[in-house]
C-alpha cells in the first residue's frame, strides 16, 4: 500500500502539537469555550418583580445551566444595597432541602449587587391550591409539612421568615417544596430601630407605606406584625403557617376584603373557622382545631414551635388524634379507646388506607380513570369517617362498618375484571376491617360470602351462608352442589374441573352470568399453569348462551389464531351492569380471529379484544348495535358486499387505521 498524503490534514499536525488557539479549540473545545466566555450570565428574562428585587431567569454560561438571578430593582439605589446583600447572605446561610439554595452572590459590571439561586418550576403553593389543576388535600398537607420543616430549621438557626405566604413557597408536582423570599427574614434579636426612621421613599416594601412599620404580606401576617410596638418572633411565622393551613383546607385566604378590612381583621385576629368557611369540604374537626391553635391571637397560645405544628399534621395523616382537639374530648376518647377494641381497628384501618391507595394506583395504571375517580371519593369518605367518627356511638361504629363493607362491594365491582386477584385481596381486607368494627355486620358477611363464591371457596361460603332473604341466596344452589370446593388464589381447580363446573352450573343455576364471569376472571388471573384454557371459555360461552355446544372454538396458540363457529345468535359478552361488558374470548391469547356464525353476529361483542386481524367473511348478518374498541386491529376481512367500509370504520375504533380486505 503506497502512502498518499491528504493535504487537508497538514494543518492539523501543527495545531495539535503547537497548541495554538485553533489547536486548543480542537483538542479541548469545552475548555476553550469556558475560557473564552466573556459574560457569565446571559439571556435574561424577567420572572417577577418585588418591592426590592427583580428575579430573572438567566443562563450561567460557565456552569451551563439556567438559574434564577435576583437583582436589585433598577429604581432602588445604594440605600438598598445592604438590605439586598443581607438577604443573599442570610438565605445562603440556610442549608435545608426545603429552602431555596443560593449559588453565588456578587456585584455586576454596573456595581449593582446580584445573587443567583436554584431555578425551579413556576408553580407556587398558591397555584397548587387555587390553580387550574388544584392538588388534593393530602398532597397539600404534605407540602405544608415540608414548609413546617423548613421553617422549623430556620428557627433552629435563630432566623425568622416574617413573610410566609403561598406565593413564597414553590411546590412542584413532584414533591419538591422550597421556601423562598427571605427578604424580610431576621436574625432573632436583631435590632430594628434603625429602620423606623427611614424616610417613606426608602421603605423596603410597598406596604410599609400603609402603616409605618408594617412589613410582610397582608393576609398572612400575625396581629403583632401590624402593631408598631409588638414583638415579632418565630411565633409570627407560626401564625402565618396557620393562615397557610387555613387556605389549604378552605381554598380561600383566611382574611379577605379591602386592604383596610384585612388590616382590621388581622389586628383583631378575626379568624373564621375553616369548617364555617367551607362546610362543603367536610374539613375534619381535628384539622380545624390545628388551624385555630396556630392562629391564636396571643402568641403564647400558638404552637410553641413549627415542629409541633408539623407533628400535628403528621399525626392526623397517620390517623392519630391531634393535640389541638379539646382536652375534654381527648380524655373521653382515651376512655373510649380503653372500653373498646379500637387499637385493633386502628391497625386494620391503617392497612385499609394503604390498600385502598394501592388499589387506586393499580387502577390508574390500567387507565380506568373514570372508575378510579368514583372510588377515590369512597376512599376519602372512609378516611374522613375514620378520622372524625371513630369516637362516636356504637351505632355510628356500625354505620361505619356498613360503609366499609359497601366500599368492599364497590371496590369489587370496579376492580374485579381489571385486577381480579388484587381486588379480591383488598376487598377481603376491607371486609375484615368492617367485621372488626362490627362483628355481626350482615353486609360484611354478605361480602365475605360473595368473595368466597368468586374464588370458588364454597367450603368457606358455607361457614357463613347468606340469609334466606338475601338477594344472593340463589348462589347457594351452586355452593351446595359443590360443597367440597375450597379453592383460593394459590390453589386452583384443574382446567377440566373448572369447565366441568361451568357446564353443571348451567344446569343448576343459569341466571348468574356476571358471577360466572367473575369466577372465570379470577380463575384465569390466579392460574399460573399454561394449559389450554379454551374448554373453560367454551363452557363459559355455553353458560352465557344458556345452551350446550353453543359454539365450537378452534384455538391454535402456536399460530395465535382462533376460529369461532356457531349456528345461532351467539353472544360473546355479558351486557348487564355487573358484567365486564368485554368480550369473553379475552381469556384466550390470539392475534387473529375468524368468526363463522351462520346467523346474526354482533361485532360489538368483541369489545376490547387484542386482535390484529378479524375475519368476518364467513358470518351471516352483521349487527352493529354497539361501537367496539379493538385497539390493535389492523385488518378486517369481509365478503364483497357484506357490509360497507363506512359502517365498519364508524363502528370499530382502533389505535391506527385498519385495512379492509374483501375476500370471497
Amino acid at each position, binding site marked *: 500500500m503506497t502512502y498518499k498524503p*491528504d*493535504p487537508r*490534514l497538514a494543518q*492539523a499536525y501543527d495545531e*495539535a502539537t503547537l497548541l495554538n488557539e485553533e489547536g486548543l479549540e480542537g483538542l*479541548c*473545545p469545552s475548555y476553550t469555550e469556558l475560557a473564552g466566555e466573556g459574560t457569565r450570565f446571559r439571556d435574561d428574562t424577567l420572572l417577577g418583580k418585588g418591592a426590592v428585587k427583580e428575579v430573572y431567569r438567566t443562563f450561567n454560561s460557565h456552569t451551563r445551566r439556567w438559574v434564577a438571578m435576583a437583582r436589585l430593582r433598577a429604581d432602588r439605589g445604594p440605600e438598598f444595597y445592604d438590605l439586598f446583600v443581607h438577604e443573599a447572605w442570610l438565605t445562603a446561610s440556610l442549608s435545608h432541602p426545603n429552602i431555596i439554595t443560593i449559588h453565588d452572590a456578587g456585584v455586576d459590571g454596573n456595581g449593582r449587587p446580584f445573587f443567583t439561586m436554584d431555578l425551579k418550576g413556576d408553580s407556587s403553593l398558591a397555584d397548587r391550591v387555587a390553580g387550574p389543576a388544584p392538588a388534593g388535600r393530602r398532597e397539600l398537607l404534605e407540602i405544608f409539612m415540608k414548609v413546617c420543616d423548613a421553617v422549623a430549621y430556620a428557627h433552629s438557626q435563630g432566623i425568622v421568615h416574617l413573610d410566609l405566604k403561598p406565593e413564597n413557597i414553590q411546590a412542584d408536582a413532584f414533591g419538591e417544596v422550597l421556601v423562598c423570599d427571605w427578604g424580610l427574614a431576621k436574625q432573632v434579636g436583631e435590632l430594628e430601630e434603625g429602620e423606623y426612621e427611614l424616610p417613606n421613599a426608602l421603605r423596603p416594601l410597598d406596604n410599609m407605606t400603609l402603616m409605618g412599620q408594617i412589613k410582610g404580606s397582608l393576609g398572612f401576617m400575625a396581629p403583632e406584625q401590624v402593631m408598631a410596638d409588638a414583638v415579632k418572633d418565630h411565633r409570627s411565622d407560626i401564625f402565618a403557617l396557620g393562615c397557610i393551613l387555613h387556605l389549604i383546607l378552605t381554598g380561600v385566604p383566611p382574611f379577605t376584603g379591602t386592604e383596610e378590612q384585612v388590616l382590621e381583621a388581622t389586628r383583631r385576629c378575626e379568624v373564621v373557622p375553616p369548617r364555617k368557611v367551607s362546610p362543603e369540604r367536610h374539613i375534619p374537626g381535628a384539622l380545624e382545631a390545628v388551624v385555630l391553635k396556630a392562629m391564636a391571637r396571643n402568641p403564647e397560645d400558638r404552637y410553641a414551635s413549627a415542629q409541633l405544628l408539623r407533628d400535628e399534621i403528621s399525626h392526623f395523616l397517620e390517623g392519630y388524634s391531634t393535640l389541638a382537639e379539646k382536652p375534654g374530648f381527648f380524655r373521653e376518647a382515651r376512655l373510649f379507646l380503653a372500653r373498646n377494641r379500637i387499637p385493633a381497628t386502628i391497625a386494620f384501618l391503617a392497612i385499609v388506607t394503604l390498600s385502598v391507595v394501592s388499589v387506586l394506583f393499580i387502577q390508574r395504571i390500567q387507565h380506568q380513570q373514570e372508575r378510579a375517580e368514583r372510588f377515590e371519593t369512597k376512599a376519602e369518605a372512609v378516611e374522613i369517617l375514620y378520622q372524625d367518627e371513630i369516637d362516636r356511638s356504637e351505632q355510628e361504629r356500625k354505620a361505619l362498618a356498613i360503609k366499609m363493607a359497601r366500599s368492599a362491594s364497590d371496590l369489587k365491582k370496579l376492580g374485579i375484571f381489571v385486577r381480579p386477584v388484587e381486588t379480591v385481596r383488598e376487598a377481603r381486607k376491607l371486609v375484615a376491617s368492617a367485621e372488626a368494627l362490627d362483628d355481626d355486620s350482615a353486609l360484611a358477611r354478605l361480602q365475605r360470602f360473595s368473595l368466597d363464591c368468586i374464588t370458588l371457596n364454597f367450603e368457606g361460603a358455607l361457614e357463613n351462608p347468606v340469609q334466606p332473604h338475601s338477594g344472593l341466596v340463589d348462589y347457594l344452589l351452586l355452593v351446595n352442589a359443590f360443597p367440597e370446593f375450597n379453592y383460593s388464589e394459590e390453589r386452583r381447580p384443574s382446567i377440566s374441573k373448572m369447565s366441568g363446573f361451568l357446564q353443571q352450573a348451567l344446569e343448576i343455576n343459569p341466571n348468574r352470568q356476571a358471577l360466572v364471569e367473575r369466577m372465570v376472571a379470577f380463575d384465569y388471573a390466579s392460574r399460573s399453569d399454561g394449559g389450554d384454557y379454551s374448554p373453560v371459555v367454551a363452557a363459559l360461552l355455553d353458560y352465557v348462551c344458556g345452551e350446550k355446544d353453543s359454539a365450537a372454538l378452534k384455538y391454535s396458540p402456536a399460530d395465535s389464531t382462533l376460529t369461532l363457529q356457531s349456528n345461532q345468535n351467539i353472544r360473546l359478552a355479558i351486557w348487564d351492569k355487573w358484567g365486564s361488558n368485554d368480550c369473553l374470548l379475552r381469556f384466550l391469547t390470539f392475534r387473529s380471529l375468524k368468526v363463522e356464525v351462520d346467523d346474526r353476529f354482533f361485532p360489538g361483542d368483541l369489545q376490547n379484544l387484542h386482535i390484529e386481524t378479524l375475519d368476518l367473511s364467513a358470518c351471516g348478518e352483521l349487527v352493529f348495535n354497539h361501537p367496539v374498541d379493538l385497539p390493535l386491529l389492523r385488518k378486517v376481512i369481509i365478503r364483497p358486499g357484506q357490509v360497507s367500509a363506512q359502517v365498519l370504520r364508524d363502528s370499530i375504533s382502533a389505535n391506527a387505521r385498519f385495512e379492509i380486505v374483501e375476500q370471497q
Partner: protein
Amino acid sequence: MIRYFVQIMGSSDQTRYTLLQRACDLHDEQAWEEFVGHYRRFIFYILNEMGVAFGDIEDVAQQVLLSLTKDLKGYDRSRARFRTWLSTVIRNAALAHFRKQNVRQNYIRVFGEEQSLEAMEQPSEIDLRIEQEWAAYVADLAMTRVKDVFQGQAIEVFELGLDGLPAAEVAEKTGLSIASVYTLRKRVKKRLYLEIRALVAELEPE
C-alpha cells in the same frame, strides 16, 4: 482516552521511551518492526518525491533508517525539532545517493544550485517541504486511527468540513441537523488531535 491523557499530561520525571528510542536503545525487536513500519512508508514517499529512482528507493530508505537509529543519540531537541532533524537525515541520504549516482540534473532539480553540506544546517526549501510532508503524514496516520473509532456519518461530516463546505451545506448533504454537524465535527477533530499528539509522543523522541 485515559491512555492519551497520561501521555499528554504525563509527568516529566518519569522516563518515557518513544518508539524510536526503544527501537534503537533497547534492542527491542518488536519496537524496531513497529518503528520501521511507521517510518518506512513516509521515507519511501519522500524519496520518490525527490526523484530517487524506483529501483534505488529500497536501498536509500535502508540508509535513512540506519542513520536514524545510529544518529538518534546526536539528536538534540534544543537545536531542532524532530521533523527538521528527520528531514535533514532523509535529505542527506538522498544527497549522498545522488552524489554517488552523479545524476546532476536530478540534483539540481531537487536542491537547486549546489550547496555546501554545512549549509544544510539552514532549513532549505526541501527541508520545509519534508517537514510539511511529515506533518501531513502523522496527521494521516492519526486520521486512519480516528476512522476506526467513529461509526455512521461522523467522518463524512468531518471530511466535508475539511473540504471547506459550510455546516449548513453539510447538514443538507448528510440529512443531519446543523447542530449535529457541529457536534460530530467537534468530536472527530478532538479525537484527531488526541491521536496526533499520541503519535507524536510515539514517533518523535524528546
